[in-house]
């Protein structure tokens, strides 16, 4: 205990006596850790932005009716396949309705599942947007706005007007940005749409929808689910798609298999739907790991170098302390304490620097068509970076203090004195 007090006292004197040197060593740590935090925040921020571009609006499981030929043809059931060679030419799919059979019970079952964060029904209908003598092809999806906003950040893609207009007014429409541009329409205007059967509907534009993908924005619009069902001329149980969002994206594959097995529907999980995206995302993650490890190694060596010099300059003091009766351990602790103080000081400043610069980057304008809600560069304020940063600062300063001090611990004092 008493030794500890002396050790702390000596360390304090050393650190305070050469404030400039202490400051330089601490700043070395600060820059290393600060840069690490800034790079990681910025890089993973961009990564998350790119991931979010796809993941936020993509349902984890999409449920719909598939149009495909029946896998087991009746003839195969009747004539045993093992002993007969059945051959049917030109198989065509059975005519099926686009609507999901028993959609409402499926929906309420899904909502009860613990793994499911939410499920939203959609009714999709093909329409023409009327503009004078021009007819534009289009697709209108009927949605439950509140759930879409909650689960798929639908609000982010409404660049003009109000997403809730769909709830307030039954014949309100959120018009695709491409359509709006082509027809020179804006919020508050009326638009005529014609369904496939030729019936005409007049809708009022409550907002403009922009996904960032031109081919989508040129055809896609959204209305209330009820309105879509009316355009389709169908009842309240007409639902053509169900979009499911799960609590954990990794459950997507098993859940979609389960749904496929339980109900007479097709279920597509996000992994299959976005295979190429998944690969890109994996590689981006890999790159950010490599960069972060490189940054830490570079910062670590910098810190190690500066502190090592700091301690080698004190070799004389080590000899004196040992000559007057301090043990190798005492001397080692003295330098470890100093190294750790510098590491702590530099690390905390580094966290401050990292956070500060992150805040500045967060304010730099960054405008992109793809993400209408993003106005500035994205920053990921994950506390893990800060914890990693300070931990690393402490570990590298500890080693930088420990290794030379351990060497000094073993030396006879005279060896240091003679070496001068």
């Amino acid at each position: 205990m008493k030794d500890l007090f002396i050790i702390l006292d000596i360390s304090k004197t050393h650190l305070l006596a050469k404030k400039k040197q202490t400051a330089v060593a601490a700043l070395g740590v600060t820059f290393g850790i600060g840069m690490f935090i800034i790079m990681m925040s910025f890089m993973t921020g961009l990564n998350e932005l790119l991931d979010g571009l796809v993941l936020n609006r993509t349902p984890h499981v999409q449920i719909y009716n598939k149009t495909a030929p029946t896998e087991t043809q009746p003839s195969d059931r009747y004539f045993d396949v093992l002993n007969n060679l059945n051959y049917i030419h030109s198989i065509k799919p059975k005519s099926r309705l686009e609507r999901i059979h028993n959609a409402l019970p499926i929906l309420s079952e899904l909502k009860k599942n613990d793994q499911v964060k939410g499920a939203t029904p959609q009714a999709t209908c093909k329409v023409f947007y009327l503009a004078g003598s021009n007819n534009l092809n289009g697709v209108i999806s009927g949605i439950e706005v509140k759930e879409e906003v909650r689960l798929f950040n639908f609000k982010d893609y409404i660049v003009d007007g109000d997403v809730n207009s769909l709830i307030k007014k039954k014949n309100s429409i959120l018009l695709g940005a491409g359509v709006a541009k082509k027809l020179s329409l804006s919020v508050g205007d009326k638009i005529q749409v014609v369904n496939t059967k030729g019936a005409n509907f007049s809708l009022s534009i409550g907002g403009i929808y922009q996904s960032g993908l031109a081919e989508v924005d040129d055809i896609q619009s959204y209305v209330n689910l009820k309105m879509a069902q009316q355009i389709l001329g169908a009842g309240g149980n007409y639902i053509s798609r169900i979009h499911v969002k799960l609590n954990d994206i990794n459950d997507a594959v098993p859940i979609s298999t389960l749904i496929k097995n339980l109900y007479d529907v097709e279920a597509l999980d996000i992994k299959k739907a976005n295979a190429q995206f998944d690969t890109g995302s994996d590689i981006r993650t890999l790159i950010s790991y490599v960069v972060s490890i490189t940054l830490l190694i570079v910062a670590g060596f910098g810190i190690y170098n500066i502190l090592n010099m700091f301690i080698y300059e004190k070799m004389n003091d080590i000899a004196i302390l040992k000559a007057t009766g301090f043990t190798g351990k005492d001397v080692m602790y003295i330098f470890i304490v100093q190294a750790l103080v510098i590491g702590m000081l530099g690390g905390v400043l580094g966290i401050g620097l990292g956070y500060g610069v992150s805040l500045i980057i967060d304010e730099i304008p960054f405008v992109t068509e793809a993400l209408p809600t993003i106005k500035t560069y994205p920053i990921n304020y994950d506390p893990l970076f800060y914890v990693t940063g300070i931990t690393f600062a402490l570990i590298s300063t500890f080693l930088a203090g420990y290794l030379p001090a351990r060497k000094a611990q073993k030396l006879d004092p005279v060896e240091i004195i003679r070496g001068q």
Partner: protein
Amino acid sequence: MNLILETKNINKYFLEPVKFHVLKDISIQLQRQEFVSIMGKSGCGKSTLLYILSTMDTNYDGELIIDGQNMSNQTKDDLARIRNEKIGFIFQFHYLLPEFTVLKNVMLPALKLGKDDANTIKKNALEKLDILGIADQANKKASRLSGGQKQRVAIARSIINNPKIIMGDEPTGNLDSKNSEIVFDVLRKLSAELDMSMLIVTHDHDFAKKTDRIIEMEDGFIL
């Protein structure tokens, strides 16, 4: 027996740059309160011997017995404790910790020993500084003192724990005759009053003549 320090056949070799036999069968004895000086030409091995006697160099053959204890089989931590408690060492170049105050430099070995509380140690340190006539410099930084003052601080530091033996490696080597005389008188006085033995390496004939016994060395032998 009044032996405080004894060596039996100490041999020491330098291996770098070529193998060199520095100390050859050194056997000496030092009595309590004895004031002994070691003389010899540069390179005859007297400093090397002194470093071995002070336990700061453990790389030698032979036996070293201090205050009845054999040093050969002690760990480095034990040696550090023995240095702290029983040996005061005065270097040629004072070797003070430049960032610390004079007082702190003197106090540190006692704080390490931990026999007294900090206040008593401070009082003792001031007393020792007073003996050496530099109590007024106590709160200055060690690096701000003159050479003679530094050397006296180093002596104060060496006696703070009331060691059994004080060893000096040319403690007056860098001092003018007036300061040398002060240092000698102080050492003499301490040896008598505080029951300390002195083992001083020196080049200074006038200094050596005043001591109880002179050990002369040449080429690693004791003459």
